[in-house]
């Protein structure tokens, strides 16, 4: 405050400069700012100030980068296995040559496994989220917009799906694809198909409230077709909660996939994930090999935390009650 008073507001150019400076300081909420911002620009301004969310974005970008180009820089390949005469049963603890240590049994480099695992784990997390959100949005929109019998029917289906213990069902259904050699996309599909229910309930409730708003009424009154009302008038207004719940889905799917693959029912070992590279880890844990399970787990925790940070940041950014 004191600093502001010290600066005299001079005539002419100085005043304009001062106004401009104040505008920049005050941002979107200050009325002097005549530049109008779209909803997304506003959200970005708030998101940018959320430190944890930015850290989250950084971590996710780092892991995506590692997943995409990491394997190129590694001295060992994923299929690298020690020569039989060099095998130490319990593996070797972290050292300079192997910063994350070596696994028990086949004695593979844990760092190589973790980096290769990032690829499939992230692919599964993001793709199954996309499928889940797509199904959930379609079902929720139809249910919320049409109402009546269709709504009732769809919501009973959601009730049924929600009553089933998801983890059990995923275990059983994932088992169907066990004989496929490369079953990553089957697993993605299974996770997508069993994770849309929450989104559909959310979208339905959003549609129920938005379709009663004046601008939808106005659109209907001038004879806009249903499809256009859904895609141009309602859906864009429902987008921000959907984006937030999508981040939750990514986090949940990464953890669940790791668990299912860890139990040996998920992705086959030819495609390493953070879960299935731990499949045998339990046996070797008993002879003291802690570094094998530790590092992939830390990778999962970091990724899921980062995704949750971004989710929190997005929620605050889209919330009209918070200030930029």
């Amino acid at each position, binding site marked *: 405050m004191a600093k502001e008073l010290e600066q005299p507001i001079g005539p002419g150019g100085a005043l304009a400069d001062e106004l401009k400076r104040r505008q920049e300081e005050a941002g979107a909420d200050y009325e002097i700012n005549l530049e109008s911002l779209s909803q997304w620009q506003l959200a970005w301004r708030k998101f940018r100030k959320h430190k944890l969310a930015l850290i989250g974005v950084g971590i996710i970008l780092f892991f995506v980068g590692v997943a995409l180009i990491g394997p190129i820089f590694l001295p060992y390949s994923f299929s690298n296995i020690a020569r039989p005469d060099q095998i130490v049963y319990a593996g070797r603890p972290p050292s300079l040559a192997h910063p994350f240590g070596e696994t028990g049994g086949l004695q593979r480099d844990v760092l190589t496994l973790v980096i290769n695992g990032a690829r499939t784990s992230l692919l599964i997390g993001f793709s199954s989220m996309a499928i889940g959100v797509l199904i959930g949005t379609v079902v929720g929109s139809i249910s919320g917009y049409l109402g009546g019998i269709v709504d009732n029917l769809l919501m*009973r*289906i959601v*009730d*049924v*799906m*929600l*009553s*089933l*213990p998801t*983890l*059990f*069902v995923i*275990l*059983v*259904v994932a*088992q*169907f694809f066990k*004989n496929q050699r490369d079953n990553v996309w089957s697993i993605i599909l299974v996770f997508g198909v069993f994770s849309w229910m929450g989104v559909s309930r959310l979208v339905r409730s959003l549609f129920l409230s938005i379709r009663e708003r004046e601008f939808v009424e106005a659109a209907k009154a001038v004879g806009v077709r249903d499809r256009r009302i859904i895609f141009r008038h309602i859906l864009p207004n429902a987008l921000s909660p959907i984006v937030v719940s999508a981040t939750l889905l990514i*986090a949940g799917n990464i*953890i669940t996939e*790791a*668990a299912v693959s*860890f*139990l040996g*029912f998920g992705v086959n070992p030819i495609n390493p994930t953070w*879960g299935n590279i*731990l499949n045998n*880890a*339990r046996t070797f*844990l*008993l*002879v*003291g090999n*802690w570094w094998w*399970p*530790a590092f992939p*787990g830390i990778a*999962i*925790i*970091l*990724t*899921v*935390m980062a995704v*949750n*940070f971004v989710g929190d940041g997005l929620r605050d950014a889209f919330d009209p009650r918070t200030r930029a």
Partner: protein
Amino acid sequence: MAKYTIRRVIQAIPVLFLISVVTYAIMLAAPGGPQQRFAQNPKMTNEQRAKFIHAWGLDQPIPIQYGRWMGILNPDAEGIAALVGPKGLPNFLPSGLSGATNGLLHGDLGYSIDSGNAVGTTIAKAALPTLILAGFALILWIGIAILMGVLAAVRRYSFFDQATTVFAYIGFAMPTFWLGLMLIYLFGVNLHWLPVSGMIETRNSPPFGTDKYWAYLGDNPIKALTDVGRHLILPVITLVVVNIAGDSRFVRASMLEALSQDYVRTAKAKGLAGRSVTFKHALRNALLPVVTNIGLELPFLFSGALITETIFAWPGIGKLTIDATNNFDYTILMGVLFISAVTVVLANLLADVLYAFVDPRIKY
């Protein structure tokens, strides 16, 4: 209230019916079906395989198989006559009227195709260890979550609040199996303090659940119970840590909401002691949504500890499910899936009824 409960129970029936159809469809969508488990067995002749398929009714059309499993159709009859039970009345009526004993409607979940034991008894046997583990974990984690949430809300932005926030973020992101593995390494392998698998020390006591075990328990109760207790510690810690994260946040949010209400300000303005306002005015109201949340978590008592049970070789429902999945023992899986779904529906019902009970403003 009674009327509302009855209406909800009646509404649950079609949902339960749909659940049975969906679970059955999932099982039968399996490539190869239940006989798949013999496909690689060189000792089995085609004749024996055909016999197995016929004995289990797997050669019948799917609707008929479902009807038999459900108890609508009489398994001893063919065609339209199967709708009639042994006593000449429709088969789906209660056993006393129709004389039928097969199928879900008569309380029969069938037999395990792996062991041949009745599914109902197998599940009941596995349910006891699960109830012990999940029950202890549930009580502990709800207690701690409420305590943590309330303290964090009362001292908002304090060091304690921030510490619980960090803990919640990490706990939320931590896979159950990873925490279990790390605890096994730390307390079992490294420090040798606690046992890392099973429910009892098999060297010293008879297998759990047998008559011999109950006799052993009667003879030295303290020894037997401390043994189970020692085996409980690690799995319970695993479940508690992973689950506290979300719940303590929930309690905190609910408590903050209650603390910002007008009646709390009024109570403070009247000059009541801070503690009395917090616990009498705010906490009681903050716990309303928490009660619903707890109700929704109750099905966990039956099904939730799948991963933890597998890691700690706890002989409960989770382990039963994993074993059944490995063997494709579809009758057991059907039983587990259906019973879990029923507990979810019942818990939802209970949560709604409980909510109406604790909140007098709600009328049905």
